[in-house]
């Protein structure tokens, strides 16, 4: 039997709640698949960095075998996590790559995520046009990684002009306000490049403003967005979008990797990538385009709007990361 601690320092988002639910379900699945018992211990609260350090310490003091953490900060938790590693606890960071020694990251490649979005937009626009960018938290590593990918791609398309770039704080309401402002003060926007966490607000603003020409935009893989996209495309035949999945199940993938390691697996060094050389990149599960929109809509028709498209690796895939 393994006791596995989960430290989540931010709860007020649908994505995080799905992440937690996935973990609960995955733990049961693993129990059934492998015939072992897993006791999950959750530390789930909105906390500052010190609060998350406290979460880590409390998990240690409860004697967990492994810690899955979605860190609030890229570096601030390193000392606390290294202490855990020193005590022989398996520590896996998910959703966010960190450089703490002995910690393994199980994440998707955010730079690649940004590239995919930007490439889609550039190509859909035929390589030219005025676009605006509404990004996430400026200074947040995930945002910075994504934007690095975006810039890399846009550099290849000299005829695409970025006429405005603003932060929507990864908040639907803020994104909606920012987009409303832009649409009212900037004429002739051809495309909007944005990220998950805001796209639905932005598309709502777009529908409300109803500009001419009606721009296309990158979106997010949430059920609510797909529905709005579908509706918008019906009213504005030129409208199209893309949804690159950022799976909340990434933490469950991390859980599977943790179980492999606890069962004696050793991570295959050659599979490690990333800025700190300690990341296992999980493939982006899928990308939704206009072509398969209808199929996906049907697939998720019972899900509430807040449902995020997901993907969790199998235990075999987790095992394939081991030596």
């Amino acid at each position, binding site marked *: 039997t393994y006791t596995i601690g989960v430290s989540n320092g931010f709860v007020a988002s649908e994505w995080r709640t799905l992440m*937690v639910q996935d973990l609960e379900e995955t733990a049961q699945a693993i129990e059934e698949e492998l015939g072992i018992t897993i006791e999950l211990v959750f530390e*789930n609260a909105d906390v500052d*960095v*010190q609060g998350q350090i406290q979460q880590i*310490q409390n998990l240690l003091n409860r004697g967990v075998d492994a810690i899955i953490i979605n860190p609030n900060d890229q570096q601030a*938790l390193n000392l606390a996590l290294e202490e855990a590693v020193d005590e022989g606890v398996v520590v896996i960071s998910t959703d966010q790559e960190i450089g703490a020694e002995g910690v393994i990251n199980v994440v998707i490649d955010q730079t690649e995520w940004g590239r995919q979005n930007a490439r889609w937009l550039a190509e859909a626009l035929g390589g030219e046009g005025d676009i605006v960018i509404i990004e996430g938290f400026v*200074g947040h*590593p995930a945002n910075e990684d994504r934007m690095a990918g975006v810039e890399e791609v846009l550099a290849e398309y000299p005829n695409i002009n970025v006429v405005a770039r603003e932060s929507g704080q990864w908040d639907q309401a803020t994104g909606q306000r920012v987009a409303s402002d832009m649409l009212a003060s900037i004429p002739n926007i051809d495309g909007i490049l944005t990220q998950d966490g805001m796209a639905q607000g932005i598309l709502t603003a777009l529908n409300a403003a109803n500009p001419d020409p009606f721009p296309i935009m990158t979106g997010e893989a949430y059920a609510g967005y797909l529905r709005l996209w579908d509706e918008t495309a019906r009213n504005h035949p030129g409208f199209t979008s893309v949804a690159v999945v950022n799976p909340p199940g990434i933490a469950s993938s991390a859980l599977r990797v943790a179980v492999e390691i606890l069962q004696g697996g050793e991570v295959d060094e050659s599979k490690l990538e990333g800025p700190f050389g300690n990341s296992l990149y999980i493939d982006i599960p899928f990308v939704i385009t206009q072509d398969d929109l209808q199929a996906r809509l049907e697939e998720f028709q019972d899900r509430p709007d807040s449902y995020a498209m997901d993907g969790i690796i199998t235990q075999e895939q987790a095992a394939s990361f081991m030596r």
Partner: protein
Amino acid sequence: MRPSSAWLRNHTYLVPLVLLVVAVALNYYFQPNFFQPRVLNGNLRVMLPLMVLAAGQALVIIAGGIDLSVGAMVSLVNVLLVTLVTRESGPPEVLLAVGAALLVGAAAGAVNGLCVAYLRLQPIVTTYATSFLFSGVALAVLPRPGGALPRALTTFYRSAPLGVPATAYGIALLLLLWVVLRRTRFVQYLYAVGGNAAAARASGVRVAFTRFLSYVTMGLFAALSAMMLTLSTGSGNSRLGDAMTLPSIVAVVLGGTRLAGGQGGVVGAVIGVAVLTIIRNLITFSNVPTWYQTLFDAVVILLALAGPGIVQLIRGRRA
């Protein structure tokens, strides 16, 4: 009833102290290893930065103000520290950085003080406004999280010289500092200004200057808090301290300081932080279900805040 003698008034932390004892007892019950040095050290490490910050907040609140920019100030000093110091820095650079940190903290506090004391702007909204100022500067100084401190420093923060956690010395120093400060005219005037500013002025107290100084002192405490926090995390982030603002105020109130000013103290604020921290331990060790943790946290804090009032209400009924 309000205490009728000065002694009770000077010991407003007695009620929170009871709260702390109860909290510690509960924590020990759920977490038998609570008093192990390693566990205790870990807890104190988490508490210290907020304790320092709440101590400063207490001074401002006693003087009749409030500061919503403390978190942003901590962030600002934090990014400053990690830009001035690298993993390889020696003592001279570190000292320089400490000096610069105190200076910037005091300067940020002075901005607040100028606005509130001399321009007579309303503290809550003014410090909310300056928090944008400080956050913006912090973001400009360090656009991406990063930086590191010399290992020796972070190790020291986690060490336990003579078997007592380094942070325990820190808390002792903080309380000692308060004992010294409490004897000064400055702190005496904080109480007078917070209690009745017109009266203080008529008595020859320089009210605006006292208020101004209270914010400058807050800035210095924010800088100290940022130093502790940076020692704890070993890195910089332009939003690192943001989430500490509201807890610093809650801790002060939990510690028996009146938000209207003129009453309270630093001891209570320090106790308030300890109580807040222990409540989170309780959530872990009493196995509150995942989905109820936020609710539990809020309800317990609210009950702790309501405790004295409810006791009074019941006593008042009977009388």
